[in-house]
């Protein structure tokens, strides 16, 4: 047992527990905060994997921007607690069985196929250095320049689309 292993196990426990909290919490705000915790732990996983840029992007984009948007909408709609409507009785057991099936299938594939390549390549070379970040930036802006620009168009389209969607029609009340 060394430090990395302990850190990994603690992080894994926190990630799974916060995901479970997201699933079972009755209050939408608590669910959103559990998801923020989950995003933060995944960001630390990225740091462990030697991807500092992705880790910081995770914190700023996911835990920052997206979750603030979520909380904003939750507060705007006032839907912290939803009234319980009629529940489909068979829905929950069937969903649990299906999710367990997915998990079992994935686990089967993981332990069947990946037993051979189950180790990470060269541990401490070429990660967590400014040189690695420089390489990432050069790759992003040379080899993947066109997808990067297309991304900006996508964000613009999303922004315009949201404004058009939520704009009230002329003469519409409410």
């Amino acid at each position, binding site marked *: 047992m060394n430090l*990395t292993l302990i850190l990994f196990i603690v992080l894994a426990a926190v990630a799974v527990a916060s*995901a479970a909290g997201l699933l079972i919490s009755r209050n939408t705000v608590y669910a959103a905060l559990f998801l923020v915790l989950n995003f933060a732990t995944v960001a630390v996983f990225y740091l*462990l994997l030697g*991807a500092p*840029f992705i880790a910081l992007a995770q914190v700023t984009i996911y835990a920052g921007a997206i979750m603030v*948007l979520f909380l904003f909408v939750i507060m705007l709609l006032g839907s912290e607690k939803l009234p319980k409507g009629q529940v489909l009785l068979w829905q929950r057991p069937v969903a649990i069985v299906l999710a367990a099936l997915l998990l079992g299938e994935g686990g089967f594939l993981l332990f069947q196929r990946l037993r051979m390549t*189950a180790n990470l390549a060269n541990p401490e070379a070429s*990660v967590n250095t400014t040189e690695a970040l420089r390489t990432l930036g050069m790759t992003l802006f040379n080899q*993947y320049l066109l997808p990067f620009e297309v991304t900006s168009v996508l964000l613009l389209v999303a922004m315009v689309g*949201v404004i058009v969607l939520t704009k009230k029609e002329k003469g519409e009340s409410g």
Partner: protein
Amino acid sequence: MVQTIPLSWYLAISMVLFAMGTLGVLIRRNPLIIFMSIELMLNAANLAFVAFARSFDVLTGQIFVFFVMTVSAAEVAVGLALIIIIFRNKHSIDVDLMNSLKG
């Protein structure tokens, strides 16, 4: 001295998170929570991407994760706008009530 964690452990975590996200989409009826579960699944996929990128020592996985993050930001903006419109029309956002295409 840093011991590396095997790739399969990261994949196992990613798989568990993805399955929990699926469960969330299936059992919850609040569209906001369903959206959050979808984000959880995207995150699990991103974790697998980064783990594989590290395993094969290529940067492409990290760049793809960056693109996935951007696309999911756009998706969340549009989805939340749709939820707001539905709330404005029906004064409730329970997905069980969304059973008609018009009005």
